[in-house]
């Protein structure tokens, strides 16, 4: 439970999280998450023989754009697409793109479980970088993990 004062102190002006955990709904969403990740890994591996890495990522980006456009036409109120802080966008998307290249390559050539296991080192990196660049400190861990994971979900 995060009070508004605490969330401001954490630098999170996002709407406060719900008061209670809806565990069945969370389980349902997580089932969807896991199935989606598995679907993506299988699809990447199946197409690995046909397309190169850039083309795989192109498929993903264009497909994502299509899905987003559908969502935006369904909900026109959330279509404020003005680009603010383009440098930060570029840094974020560049690193994400390179990471996606490496990940896609690994999914094609390595055992899937190994890839996902190594990928789970990501929170360690994120913690280190957060300490280095965002000036965060190691306390209040569950809440910080939560915010980190919330941001990682985007």
């Amino acid at each position, binding site marked *: 439970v995060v009070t508004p004062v605490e969330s401001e102190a954490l630098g999170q002006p996002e709407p406060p999280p719900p008061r209670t955990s809806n565990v069945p709904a969370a389980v349902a969403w997580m089932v969807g998450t896991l199935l989606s990740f598995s679907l993506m890994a299988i699809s990447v591996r199946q197409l690995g023989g046909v397309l*190169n890495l850039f083309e795989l990522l192109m498929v993903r980006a264009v497909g994502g754009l299509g899905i987003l456009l559908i969502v935006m036409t369904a909900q026109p109120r959330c279509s404020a697409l003005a680009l603010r802080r383009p440098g930060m966008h570029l840094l974020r998307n560049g690193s994400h793109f390179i990471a996606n290249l490496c990940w896609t390559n690994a999914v094609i050539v390595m055992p899937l479980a190994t890839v996902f296991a190594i990928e789970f080192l*990501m929170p360690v990196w*994120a913690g280190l970088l957060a300490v280095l660049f965002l000036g965060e400190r190691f306390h209040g861990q569950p809440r910080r993990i939560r915010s980190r994971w919330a941001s990682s979900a985007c």
Partner: protein
Amino acid sequence: MGFLGVLIILRPGIEAFQPAALGVLAASLGYAVSNIGTKKLIPVQSTIAILFWMNLMQAVMALVGIDLAFPLRLGAHDWIWAIGIAVGGTAAHYCLTNALRVADAIVVIPLDFLRIPLIAFVGWMFYGETLDCWCSSAAESSCRESCGTCAPRCAEAQSRREYRIPTAYRAAAQRVQALDASVRFTFSTPFARSSRRGREHGCHDAFARSEPLRRVRCLRRDARMPQQAQRSPGRPARRAPAARTELQSQSATPRRPACRDRPRRERDPARAEQTAPLRGGSSRQQAELDRMVGAEAARQGCESSGFFLFGGGNRSRSNASTSTGRSRACAAISTASTVDLQRLRGGDSTAASSAAP
């Protein structure tokens, strides 16, 4: 708890230090950087805007490496997987966000760690990737784990893939490959040798091509190819069954030291005595070829690369530059074996073709 899972899968000694695995490590670093960026962007942009610009920018970035006609290469069933990539990539983030919205991270994160067993199951189910955690020897289990991974798939993928890397990437690719080769020789040599993966299919394997033994075998096979047409049909080619038997015996007992000379042993002691100097000569030449191949590999980096992206970039180049020395060595070996064969056939009763007038 997450680290427990990571440690179970990445047991010490496993070949996790392949270049591709280092790539995943780099990928996790990249994801971390992008998460930091997301965190800084959340105050000023909506989630939809962040995702929109992400997809748009990444589509532009992907433009540098694609062939614009790539949709034409997709077969009818490939489109299912293309839709799978798009839907899976988007839905995964959407579902994870919603899960974090309806429940605390304390609930969500343990569920997210279920991703590893699930994907292990998927890998086992669809691709035969076995992963047994309680194997006594790490090297053996890594061997077993890697065997099932890509035996048919890599060969198929390598034969189907077309690499379309623009020339701007070539220099970077070569640099990466040199680094890649040094990394491989540092980290993975003992395990690459004990891995059976490379022995089960031909030269076109993403990982095991750096192994000198396999390279020599591939070269030998190349040398054999033109010879087989000329051989008499009555007597099978001499080197082909030897190589095949060697392959079988090694795949049956992978830890056994190389038994290269075993199948060549003659049953007849007189014949054995007669062929002893020949065998010495051919093994000397084989050693010379080994050395030459090793020197080539060291000089220009390994021919293979764990990175698919750069894998095809300079394969033709390295082939071109090695082809002179290699063809010379192969010619020496094949003429030597032909001469051996003819001299042996002199006293061979089954060699009807050479005895016929």
